[in-house]
C-alpha cells in the first residue's frame, strides 16, 4: 500500500472527518490520497488559518452531545514556508491547550539537512510549542505514529502534535499494521485525583465561609461544564472564570484579571477559600499573587507542572476537572450553603458598543459560539453573556487573525449552530483572505468588524504605559479598506453601521448565508 494511503486510512480510523490545509509540492502525495478519502477538505487561504480552523473545530467538537466527530482538529500544509506559516497557529494551540494534529510535508529524506528548496527544520522550530512531534522516516511507522499523535493531543493536558513527513516517505510502499492499542511507557497522565487530597479539599471547603471557584479552560477541555454547573447549583458556591473558562457556567460573577469584571475581581478579594479548576492562574488572571495571601487555595489541574508554578496552593490536586468535581461531591453534604455569598451584579451596558453587543446576546440563540480576535474587540466580546454559549479566543498567545480561522473551524464542525466572529479592523486584516474560504464552502459566517481605524488596545496600552506618541504605529485609517465593499467583492452580504443601529444585527442573524457588519465606532 502507498504510505500516503496508509496515512489517510490511519486518520479515518481515528475518526477524522475534516482536514484544513494548503497544498504544496512536498505534501502533494498526501493530497492525492486525501482526494480518494471520505475525509472532507477545507482549503484555506493562508496556512495560519488552517491551524486556527483546526483549533476552532477542536474546541467546538469537544462538547459532548453536540457533534460526534473526533475532538482533535487536523491541518495539513507543505514544507518550508508553508510549515512555518502554520507555526504561529501551533503556538496558539499550545498556549491554550487545544488538541490539534498538524501534518507537514518535508523535502525528500536524502535532502533533509541540505538547505533544499522549501526545507525548514519544522520539528526543531516547533519544539517549544508542541506537546510532541514526529519526523516519519519509515513508512511502516505511520499507523503507530498517527495513533500516538491523536492520543497525545487529546490525553492529559491537551495540545498540538506535529507530524512531519518527507515527500519520498509519502510515496513509498509500505505494509501497514494498524494497532488497536497504544503503548507509551513514558506517558501515563493521572486522571483521578488523590483521595486524601480530595478529602482535604472537602475539609477546606466545609470550613470556609466564602469559597469561590475559579473556572479555567480545563472545564471545557475535560467536558466538565455540566459537572461544574451541577456542583455549584447543589452547593451554592459562586464561580468566577478566566478568559479561557468563559461559558463554563451561565451565572458566573464574571471574568477575573486585568480585563476582568469588577464584581469578579472583588469576589476574588473577598473570598476566604479559592478552588482553581483547570486554570493556571497566569498573570493576566492573577496579576498580583500576593492578594491571595491568607486564603486557603485548592488547585486542581491535569498538568502537575501547573501546580506550584504561578501560585502555591495549600491543596494541590492532579486530576481531570470533571472527575474531581464528582469525587469531591461524594465527600461533601448534599448542600454546603443555602445561598451563595456573592451573586452576579447585572450592570447596565455603559458604552454604545456594550449596548450593541448586549442586543446581540438578546437576539442570538443562547448556545451561540462567539469567536473573538485579539484586542479591545476581544475584551468587549468577552462580556457577552450567553447561557450555553462558547467563547473562542486566543487567550494565551493573543494571536491576531484568530477569529476568522477559528470561526471557519467551528462552522465546519457544527453546521446549524450560530457562530459569530468578532474582530477588530487590525486582526481582521490579518485574516480577511479567509472570506474566500467562507464563500467557497458556503459557510454561514456572521462577522462583526469592530472598526475603530486603529490598533485600539495597543494605543490604550501605550498611553497607560506613559507612551502617548504611538499614533504613527497604531493608526490604520490611511490604509483601511471599505470592509463592506471588500466583503461584497467576495460575494458576501455586508453593510456598514455608523450609529450602532441594532437592526443591522437582526439582518445579520436572519441571513441564511454569510454576512458582515462593518461596525464603525
Amino acid at each position, binding site marked *: 500500500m502507498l504510505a500516503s494511503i496508509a496515512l489517510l486510512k490511519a486518520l479515518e480510523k481515528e475518526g477524522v472527518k475534516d482536514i484544513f490545509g494548503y497544498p504544496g509540492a512536498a505534501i502533494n502525495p498526501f493530497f492525492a490520497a486525501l482526494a480518494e478519502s471520505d475525509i472532507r477538505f477545507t482549503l484555506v487561504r493562508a496556512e495560519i488559518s488552517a491551524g486556527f480552523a483546526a483549533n476552532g473545530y477542536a474546541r467546538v467538537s469537544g462538547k459532548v452531545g453536540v457533534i460526534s466527530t473526533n475532538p482533535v482538529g487536523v491541518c495539513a500544509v507543505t514544507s518550508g514556508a508553508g510549515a512555518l506559516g502554520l507555526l504561529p497557529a501551533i503556538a496558539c494551540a499550545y498556549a491554550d491547550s487545544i488538541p490539534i494534529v498538524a501534518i507537514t510535508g518535508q523535502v525528500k529524506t536524502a535532502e533533509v539537512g541540505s538547505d533544499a528548496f522549501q526545507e525548514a527544520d519544522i*520539528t*526543531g522550530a516547533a*519544539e*517549544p510549542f508542541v*506537546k*510532541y*512531534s514526529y*519526523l516519519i522516516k519509515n513508512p511502516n511507522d505511520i499507523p503507530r505514529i498517527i495513533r500516538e499523535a491523536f492520543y*497525545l493531543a487529546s490525553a492529559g493536558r491537551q495540545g498540538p502534535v506535529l507530524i512531519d513527513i518527507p515527500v519520498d516517505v509519502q510515496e513509498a510502499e509500505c505494509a501497514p499494521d494498524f494497532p488497536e492499542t497504544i503503548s*507509551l*511507557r*513514558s*506517558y501515563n497522565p493521572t486522571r483521578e485525583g488523590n483521595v486524601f487530597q480530595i478529602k482535604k479539599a472537602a475539609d477546606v471547603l466545609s470550613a470556609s465561609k466564602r469559597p469561590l471557584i475559579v473556572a479555567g479552560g480545563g472545564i471545557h477541555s475535560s467536558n466538565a461544564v455540566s459537572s461544574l454547573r451541577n456542583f455549584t447549583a447543589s452547593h451554592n458556591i459562586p464561580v468566577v472564570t478566566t478568559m479561557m473558562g468563559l461559558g463554563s457556567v451561565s451565572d458566573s460573577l464574571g471574568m477575573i484579571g486585568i480585563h476582568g469584571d469588577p464584581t469578579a475581581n472583588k469576589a476574588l478579594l473577598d473570598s476566604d477559600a479559592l478552588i482553581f479548576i483547570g486554570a493556571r492562574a497566569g498573570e493576566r488572571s492573577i496579576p498580583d499573587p500576593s492578594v491571595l495571601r491568607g486564603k486557603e487555595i485548592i488547585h486542581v489541574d491535569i*498538568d*502537575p*507542572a501547573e*501546580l*506550584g*508554578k504561578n501560585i502555591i496552593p495549600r491543596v494541590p490536586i492532579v486530576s481531570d476537572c470533571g472527575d474531581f468535581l464528582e469525587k469531591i461531591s461524594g465527600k461533601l453534604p448534599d448542600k454546603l450553603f443555602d445561598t451563595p455569598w456573592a451573586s452576579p451584579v447585572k450592570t447596565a451596558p455603559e458604552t454604545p458598543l456594550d449596548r450593541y453587543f448586549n442586543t446581540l446576546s438578546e437576539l442570538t440563540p443562547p448556545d451561540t459560539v462567539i469567536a473573538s480576535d485579539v484586542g479591545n474587540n476581544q475584551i468587549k466580546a468577552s462580556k457577552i453573556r450567553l447561557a450555553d454559549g462558547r467563547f473562542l479566543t486566543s487567550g494565551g498567545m493573543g494571536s491576531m487573525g484568530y477569529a476568522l480561522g477559528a470561526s471557519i473551524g467551528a462552522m465546519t464542525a457544527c453546521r446549524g449552530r450560530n457562530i459569530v466572529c468578532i474582530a477588530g479592523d487590525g486582526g481582521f486584516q490579518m485574516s480577511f483572505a479567509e472570506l474566500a474560504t467562507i464563500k467557497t464552502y458556503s459557510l454561514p459566517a456572521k462577522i462583526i468588524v469592530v472598526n475603530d481605524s486603529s490598533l485600539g488596545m495597543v494605543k490604550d496600552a501605550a498611553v497607560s504605559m506613559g507612551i502617548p506618541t504611538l499614533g504613527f504605529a497604531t493608526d490604520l485609517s490611511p490604509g483601511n479598506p471599505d470592509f463592506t465593499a471588500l466583503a461584497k467583492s467576495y460575494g458576501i452580504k455586508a453593510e456598514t453601521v455608523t450609529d450602532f443601529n441594532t437592526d443591522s444585527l437582526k439582518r445579520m442573524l436572519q441571513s441564511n448565508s454569510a454576512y458582515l457588519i462593518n461596525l464603525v465606532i
Partner: protein
Amino acid sequence: MKRIYSVLVENRSGVLSRIAGLFSRRGFNIESLAVGVTETSDLSRMTIVTDADERTFEQIRKQLSKMIDTVRVKALSPDESVSRELVLMKLRGKNESIAAVCEKTGAKIIEETDDTVTVEITASDVSEILTAFDEFEIVETVRTGVISLQKGNSSII
C-alpha cells in the same frame, strides 16, 4: 544550591535537544549534563547537575517528567548517591613535576610526549584536584560532566 537529577529517557533522536531546549527556554540553569545509553539499548540516562532553589528544582522535576520521552526522573541527594566525573587534561611543564602531582592526587598519566602530558582525573568532585595542577600550563581540558547512581540496592526504576 547544586542539585542532581537522574533522568531515564527513550533513546530516540531529538531527545537531547528537547531536554536542553526545555532548560534554556524556561531559564533553568545546567551546570553539566552527561548522557549515554543504558544497559537497555532503547533507554538513555542523563545526569543533570543544576543550580536552583527549592521551588525551581521542583518545577524542573515536573517539567522533565512532563516530557513525552521521559520515563523516570529521580532527584539524587549527595548523601544517598555516588557520583563521578572524568576529566582529561593536557599539560605542559616538567614531566616529573606533573607525575609528582598525579601521585599526590590520584590522577593518572595516560599519554606523554616530550612537550606535553595528558592526565586523567576521576573523582566525585574534581575541582580540588584540578587546582593542584594550576602550577602547570594547561593546553586544554575536557570534562564529561558528573554521572551518579543511588547508593545501595535502590535503582531508578
